C-alpha cells in the first residue's frame, strides 16, 4: 500500500463527516469561505507576535506591514471591504461615523483615523473619526 493510500484511509475528513450528517448549504458555504481566512488569521497572529517583540523600528515596521497584509487577506476571504480613506476629511454624521474623541461640541468636520468595514452593504464597523485639529492644518 502506498503512502497516499494510507493517508486517504486514515483521513476521515471533517467535510466527509459533515456530509454524512447532512450539513446545510449555508454551513458548507461558511466553511468554504472560512478555510482560506483561517490560514490568513493564523499568519496574522504569528506576525503580531513578531511585531510585538521586534527589536528596532525597522523590524517592527516590517512585521506590522505583514500583519496588516494578513489581516487584509483574512478580511477579503470573508467578503469584507474597507470604507473611507485614512486621513480623509469628511462632514461629521453620527449615523455614519464613530467619534473617537471626547468633545464638548459636535464637530462639523472630522478626519478618518480608522477605516470602516462593510460586507455586502452592511456596515460591520463604522469609520472612526476625530475632530480636525485646525492648528495642525496647513
Amino acid at each position, binding site marked *: 500500500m502506498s503512502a497516499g493510500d494510507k493517508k486517504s484511509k486514515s483521513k476521515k475528513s471533517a467535510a466527509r463527516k459533515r456530509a454524512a450528517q447532512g450539513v446545510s*448549504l449555508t454551513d458548507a458555504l461558511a466553511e468554504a469561505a472560512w478555510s482560506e481566512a483561517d490560514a490568513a488569521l493564523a499568519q496574522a497572529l504569528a506576525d503580531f507576535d513578531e511585531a510585538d517583540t521586534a527589536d528596532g523600528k525597522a523590524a517592527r515596521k516590517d512585521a506590522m506591514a505583514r500583519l496588516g497584509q494578513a489581516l487584509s487577506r483574512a478580511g477579503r476571504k470573508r467578503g469584507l471591504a474597507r470604507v473611507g480613506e485614512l486621513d480623509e476629511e469628511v462632514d461629521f454624521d453620527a449615523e455614519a461615523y464613530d467619534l473617537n474623541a471626547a468633545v464638548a461640541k459636535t464637530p462639523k468636520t472630522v478626519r478618518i483615523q480608522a477605516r470602516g468595514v462593510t460586507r455586502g452593504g452592511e456596515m460591520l464597523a463604522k469609520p472612526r473619526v476625530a475632530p480636525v485639529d485646525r492648528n495642525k492644518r496647513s
Partner: protein
Amino acid sequence: MSDWTLCIDFGTAYSKAAVAPTGAWSRFDPASVRPLMLSADGQNTFLLDSAVFVDEDRVLFGRAALNEADAQADNKRAALRSFKTLLSVSDLDRALNTNAPATIDPHRVFQMRDLIVLYLAYLLASIERAITADPILAQGGRFSRRYAAPAWRSGDSAGMHDVIVRLFGEAEAFRTAVGKRLLSPDGLSLRAISEALPKAMERAEALEMGLIFEATAAAAYTSVGLEGSGSHMIVVDMGAGTTDIAALARLGPRTIELPEARVTLKQAGDFIDRVIANRVLESAKWAKRQDERTELWSVLMRQMGDIKEAVMADGRATLRNQGRSITLSFRDMEKDEDFREFEKSLRQAYDHALAVVRDDARARGRSDVQAIAVGGGASTPFIQALIRRKMESTRPRVIPRPATPDWAHAREFRGNLAPVFAQLAIAIGGALAPDSMLAARSGISPPANDRSGIPVERD
C-alpha cells in the same frame, strides 16, 4: 419541461456544479440557487480537484490523485490535470486519441480519451452524491444538464459540443457500470476499469446536455433581474492563461455573441505572476548567487497567490525570505515594460470590443451596455478600471457591474456565498441562464434519482 437545471463547470484546477430551478432567471429567488457539495475532502466542499492519477494497480481521482502524485513525485510520476486545456485544442479527436505520457500512465494502456472519460465518470458520480445529499434536490424532479466552456476555442464550437457530449455519454455509461466504487478514496482497480470501460464506451450514447459559453454564464448571473435593460454586455475574463473579451446581445428570446468583438490576449494571471517574480528578483540585490535566486523564485511561486492578491488589492505586498523583508508595490509593477504593454493592449482590445457592442446596441435602439469582469483577475484594480472606461461617453452608456453580484450578499446566505462566489460563479450563472442563452441545446435527462432502465449498481 425539467424542474431543475444543472450546470457543470469543468475547470482547469477544479470542477464545480450548481443547480437552480428551471426558470429561475426570470423568477429569481437567491435562496433557490444550490451550489453542489462535490467533494468529500477538504474544507471547500464545492471544489472537486480535476485530477486523475494512474497508480500501480488502480486509478485515483480528485484530491486522492493529487496526494498520491505528490507522494510519488520523486519517481517522475504525475497526475493528469488541465483536461480543459486539452479540450480546447482545434483537433480534439486527434488529441483524445493520443497515448497518455509515461509520467502519467506508466503502463501505457490509456489514451487521453480514456482518462478524461474516467474523470468525467468520477465527476458525474460526485454530482449524483451531492444531489442525493442535498435536502431540497433529493426530493426529486427532472434535471436538464449543461456544461460551461470558453466561447473562443479555435475550433468549431458545435463540432466540439458533439465530441464532448459523447465523452460525457461514455462517462455516464461507465459510471452506471461501476457504481459507487468510483467514489472510493482508494480509487478503482485497473482490472475493474479494463473490464468495464471498453464495454461502456461501446454502448454509450451521447448524453443530453446543453452548452453554455462561460461569458454567457457570467452575463446570466449578472443580468438577473435586468431583463429590460441588460440586453447588451461586454465581458472581460482574465484567467490564468488568457484574457478574453467578448460581447453579447440578447435579441428577443436568444442571446448571441458578437464575434467581431472577440479578442484573446495571451497575457493573464500567469503573465502577471512572472512580472511580479521578475520585479522582486530585480530588487533583491542581495540574492546574487544562482542558488539564492532559485530559492527566492520558488518562495515567490509558492506564495504567489497571496502576493499577487495583496499587490492588487492593497497596492503592495511584503514577503519574507532568509530573514529579509521584500516589499513590492503596484507602482513597481507599472514600471515593468511588458506589463505596461499588456495594459495598453488590453485597453485597445476593450475599446474595440466596446465599440462593436455599442454600435449593435445603438442600432437596436438600446440605451446601455453592461460591463462585467469575471475570472481570477476580476477584482484587480486595473480590470475594474478597464470596465469603467468610457462611462461618461454618449449613449449607449456603459454600466459597470460588480464582480460579485449584489444578490450574492442576500441574507439567506448569511454572508457566506459572496466570499466564495468567484469560484462558483460560472456554474451558478450557467444553472441560472435561460435556455435561450445556450450555445447548443439538447433534451432533458431523466431525474437524477430515477434509476429505472439503468442497470443496478455493482459495488
